[in-house]
């Protein structure tokens, strides 16, 4: 009787080990390759989630088994300008079937901008240990002509309670003002285009979110986000290249860093690689230029001297 139990326990253990071995080991790396994702499409411990900018992209074809988080409604507060509340985020991840041993892989369109932003929200709400980014996002998945699925995915909800959050990954206006006024010793990285940084333009063409001042936070350095990726497939450049890229701009990780852009999403892309690939101490300023450049009394460096004429 007892030996029977032992044998059955041993058998089930063996089966479990075998089935686990059928999938690649859960990635510890903060970014995963498309090959890794392909191998783990059916892994019950891996939850793939698309966070794209354009509505309808996910529905017309997504990574098989992937769920859809909509950044305009799921990952932000719909009334006040803020990221999604802990309470709503907990509901969201429970509904997505995420548990404490689930590895979450995010990917999206536009070079993973909003997927990276989503990853930052996961980190702020305490799920940083569990979240990964598919290197290259939709861009590489489509480039490699990998299969896309159109079915909605049904998952079993969990009761997972969020671990403690990390609000210190978020920079506030006061943090950036303190940096601008040299009251704190931090590096500020502006990841927008050179034209925005220099104040030649207020925002890229077509942007709806605007500031009434052009330029940048005094003391900030400009490393446009796109310099960190390979243009052809959207993947991050090798760590050594990234290290050099920021070192050349005077940011070597010896001091805390604040990243910002216009609305905080592209700067999440830079935030992700700086913290997760290079291991630097970084806060993302999600208020970004649309908050800073509209704030009364905030010091601004405007190299181009553009004056806001209300047009």
């Amino acid at each position, binding site marked *: 009787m007892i030996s029977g139990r032992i044998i059955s326990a041993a058998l089930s253990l063996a089966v479990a080990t075998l089935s686990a071995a059928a999938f690649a080991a859960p990635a510890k790396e903060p970014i995963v390759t498309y090959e890794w994702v392909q191998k783990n499409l059916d892994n019950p411990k891996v939850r793939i989630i698309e966070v794209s900018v354009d509505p309808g992209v996910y529905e017309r074809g997504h990574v098989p088994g992937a769920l859809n988080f909509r950044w305009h409604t799921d990952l932000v507060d719909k009334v006040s300008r803020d990221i999604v509340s802990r309470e709503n985020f907990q509901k969201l991840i429970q509904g997505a079937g995420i548990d404490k041993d689930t590895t979450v892989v995010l990917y999206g369109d536009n070079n993973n901008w909003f997927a990276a932003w989503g990853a930052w929200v996961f980190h702020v709400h305490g799920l940083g240990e569990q979240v990964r980014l598919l290197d290259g996002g939709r861009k590489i998945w489509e480039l490699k002509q990998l299969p896309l699925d159109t079915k*909605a995915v*049904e998952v079993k909800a969990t009761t997972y309670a969020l671990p403690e959050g990390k609000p210190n990954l978020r920079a506030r206006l006061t943090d950036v003002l303190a940096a601008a006024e040299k009251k704190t010793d931090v590096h500020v990285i502006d990841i927008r285009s050179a034209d925005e940084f220099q104040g030649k333009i207020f925002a890229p063409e077509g942007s709806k979110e605007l500031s009434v001042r052009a330029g940048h936070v005094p003391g900030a350095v400009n490393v446009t986000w796109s310099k960190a990726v390979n243009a052809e497939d959207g993947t991050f450049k090798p760590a050594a290249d990234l290290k050099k890229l920021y070192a050349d701009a005077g940011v070597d990780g010896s001091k805390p860093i604040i990243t910002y852009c216009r609305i905080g999403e592209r700067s999440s892309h830079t935030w992700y690689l700086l913290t997760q690939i290079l291991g630097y101490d970084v806060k993302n300023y999600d208020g970004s230029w649309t908050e800073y450049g509209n704030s009364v009394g905030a010091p601004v460096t405007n190299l181009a001297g553009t004056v806001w004429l209300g047009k």
Partner: protein
Amino acid sequence: MSRPIGIAVSFFILIGLAAGALSADSSKISKSLVLGALFGIVLQRSRFCFLCHTRDFFSNRDVRGIAAILLSLGIGTLGYHVLLTAWLPDPFSGRLPPDAHIGPAGPLLAFAAFAFGVGMAISGSCISGHLYRLGEGSPTAPFALLGTLLGFGVGFLTWNILYVASIATTPVVWLPQHLGYTGWLVAQLGLLALLAALFAYFARSSTPREAGPDGNPLAQALRRIFVCRWPAAAGGAAVGVIAAVAYFQVQPLGVTAAIGSVARSLLANAALLPETLHGLDGFAGCRTALVSGLSPNGAFVIGLVLASFAAALTAGQFTPAWPTASQAVRGLGGGLLLGWGAMTAIGCTVGTLLSGTIAGAASGWIFLVASFAGVWLTLRLLPAR
């Protein structure tokens, strides 16, 4: 133009369209070009036009056209139902399906659709009808499309006033959100069947059959496909299928986004466009934008017109004529109403009526009823041509 030359020219047009589709940089552009071409061929071959089908009923009590429209809505509904249930399994989640043409459903929409109906009856066709007739060499179509462009311009100028006065607070009603998918499907198909039965009841008891072509079986079959008018129902069924495929592959069917975008750009260049069009770009529908290169909808319209031209050439139905003054006036005047109505309703008989109704939008049904009323009233008042 003699038939052999016509066939040769249409062959080269189709080769050109295929080459365009194969060489397009974006898959959305090439898919739109192909879908537009298919749509153009179907419209031309089956004479599928919302106005003509309605007029056939009023003037001859011929129900086949109306039945074809209802069939296109039924088949489109079935296709959309498959996509919607797969893409948004829970219709009660508070979300709307991605970029489906579900617009504000209120009195202003009814008024705009009514104006559109009047414009159809005056100009002799809806916008998609004028587009395919452009390929047949219609003397009215160019004026109607010019009028449409102007009408869009007027629409942009009146948009902000109307938006604040009415549209901003008008609810966007999506029927599956209230009835569930099955309830909506059953109710909608039931209503369409009821309408078909109602029209059939008032139709002439027997509709004349078109005589079949002579010749050997192969020649007969070829004539049926390339020369004779396709049965209206075949056209309706094909429109329903194309509508669902277009939603799946690129975006819901519509023909006014590209025309509206041209109007918007012209106004902007003339510094006449309001600097902000409140809320307009937030609605799903036939979206306009300042023109910057070829849009998928632009490719769709180009495919439609060229393929209709090729189909008309092959059938020997390309019959260009000099416009009379009356055709020019009717085209421009009717087109003006078509343009204003389509701009204010965020789409026309294709974009709002077809793509809206089959997506479960109340706005689609409102457009259907109001534009029908506009057509009916105008046909009663307008002297017959």
